């Protein structure tokens, strides 16, 4: 027999009404606009775009507002939205070498062509709370200097010229690119699928895994070869137009990790690589991603798989915070019937236990008499 229980519609409706009221906060305080969120909480918006896997600043700002600042709820909203639109196709792969760089640093070479460019960074701030921000203040205008026309090659390209670092893997132009939004994951997974998974993975999860590799759980001896932030032009090969159409630019962060070298009897030793790429200014994310990308190459590089960060099934199955929160949070939904059956079983077991205890206690009593 199956008994359906209904009810709670009015409570749910009123709960959502109350939620809307709480979301708004004190009505004497001006309401946040999406432009304010996008402009002033920009790194939060970047994270929602990256993990929501949808580049649209305005929608990410709306999601953050609707989610009352809860990042994972906002990411969930974005993922749900993307399912409502048709996909026209895939863009041409972006060329990060042609990025209009706003920040570019290397921890491996001091003097790199194009120089070390700090850009808008928290690095080297003293991490002291600034009371001027509490009062509202106009920041000083940015300093300016004459921009150099020199190109900024990737640090890995410079190392690659001398064969000191492994080249990036190449494929034929018409090879299929793995897409985990279209086909369910299966293992072992190729690097294109792994990078797609890591790109949308939870930043905190990747940060902890990356950190674990540094602490010795699958050590890979990394250097931040280069981190760059800036705008990259996107082109889309539109069949109806007949050529690759410029769509505009996106802001991306890229991290190239340079890792411990590897050689064999037939190949000279060279550095290996880990790669991170994300929407917006997402430096911690891309660094963590690059560390985990490298540790997940253990199989390919013939390294012993001993740590969680090297286990692709473990990493890829637990990296998505929308999936993770769905399964964790579903525990709070009604499980009344499941629990009733467990409770019935437990009562039966306890009854059997106490009956067995009485049976064994009785003969002992007799013996004592």
């Amino acid at each position, binding site marked *: 027999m199956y008994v359906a229980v209904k009810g709670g519609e009015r409570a749910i409706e009123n709960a959502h009404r109350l939620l809307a009221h709480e979301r708004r906060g004190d009505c004497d305080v001006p309401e946040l606009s999406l432009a304010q969120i996008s402009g002033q909480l920009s790194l939060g918006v970047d994270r929602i775009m990256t993990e929501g896997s949808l580049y649209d600043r305005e929608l990410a700002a709306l999601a953050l507002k609707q989610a009352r600042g809860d990042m994972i709820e906002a990411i969930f909203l974005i993922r749900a939205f993307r399912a409502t639109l048709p996909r026209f196709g895939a863009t*041409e792969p972006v060329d990060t070498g042609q990025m209009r760089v706003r*920040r570019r640093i290397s921890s491996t070479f001091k003097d790199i062509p194009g120089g070390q*460019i700090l850009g808008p960074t928290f690095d080297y701030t003293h991490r002291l709370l600034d009371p001027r921000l509490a009062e509202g203040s106009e920041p000083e205008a940015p300093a300016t200097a004459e921009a150099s026309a020199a190109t900024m090659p990737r640090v890995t390209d410079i190392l690659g010229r001398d064969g000191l670092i492994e080249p990036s893997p190449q494929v034929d132009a018409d090879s299929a690119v793995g897409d985990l939004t279209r086909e369910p994951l299966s293992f072992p997974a190729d690097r294109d699928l792994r990078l797609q998974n890591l790109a949308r993975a939870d930043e905190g999860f990747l940060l902890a895994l990356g950190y674990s590799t540094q602490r010795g759980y699958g050590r890979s001896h990394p250097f931040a070869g280069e981190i760059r932030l800036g705008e990259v032009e996107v082109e889309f090969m539109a069949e109806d137009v007949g050529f690759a159409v410029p769509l505009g630019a996106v802001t991306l962060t890229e991290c190239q990790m340079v890792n411990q070298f590897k050689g064999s009897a037939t190949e000279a030793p060279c550095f290996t690589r880990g790669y991170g790429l994300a929407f917006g200014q997402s430096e911690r994310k891309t660094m963590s991603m690059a560390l985990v990308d490298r540790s997940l190459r253990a199989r390919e590089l013939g390294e012993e798989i001993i740590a969680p960060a090297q286990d692709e099934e473990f990493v890829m199955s637990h990296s998505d915070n929308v999936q993770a929160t769905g399964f964790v949070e579903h525990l709070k939904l009604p499980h009344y019937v499941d629990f009733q059956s467990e409770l019935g079983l437990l009562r039966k077991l306890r009854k059997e236990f106490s009956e067995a205890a009485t049976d064994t206690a009785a003969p002992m009593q007799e013996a004592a008499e």
Partner: protein
Amino acid sequence: MTVAGDNGKQAQRKAAMAVLAHADAAEIARRLDPIALPPFENLREPENGLVMLRGRIGGDGAPFNLGEATVSRAAVRLATGEVGFGYVLGRDRQKAQMIALCDALVQSNEFSQAVEESVLTPLRTVLVAERDRRAAETAATRVDFYTMVRGEG
């Protein structure tokens, strides 16, 4: 038209799209305003959709899917037959339609010069100025290393 002419026209259309994609819809509309536009029809009603953005492993290797982006697209046909397309990041359908219209005008012998002068040139100037400003602000954060020498020779 020769093959070289076709390529030249295609490069011109692409260059126009590259400028228009970065401009505000309102700004494009304002620049189009003085031009006595020819009648046109929608070949494809402006619509929203997604594209999958691709990166490359290591920046220069095999492609992988990074994540999606919202896009808008439209197509128009001028009464004189030119067909224009508009594809642009974001959800502004009207902007896609105006890009499509500009693309059609760029292909028209009658209007291409007017579009270049009234729309593309001023928008390009704004775009270049904005890029130069950012580049100058960025350049000021470039590190100048110097070496401190201690002791004698």
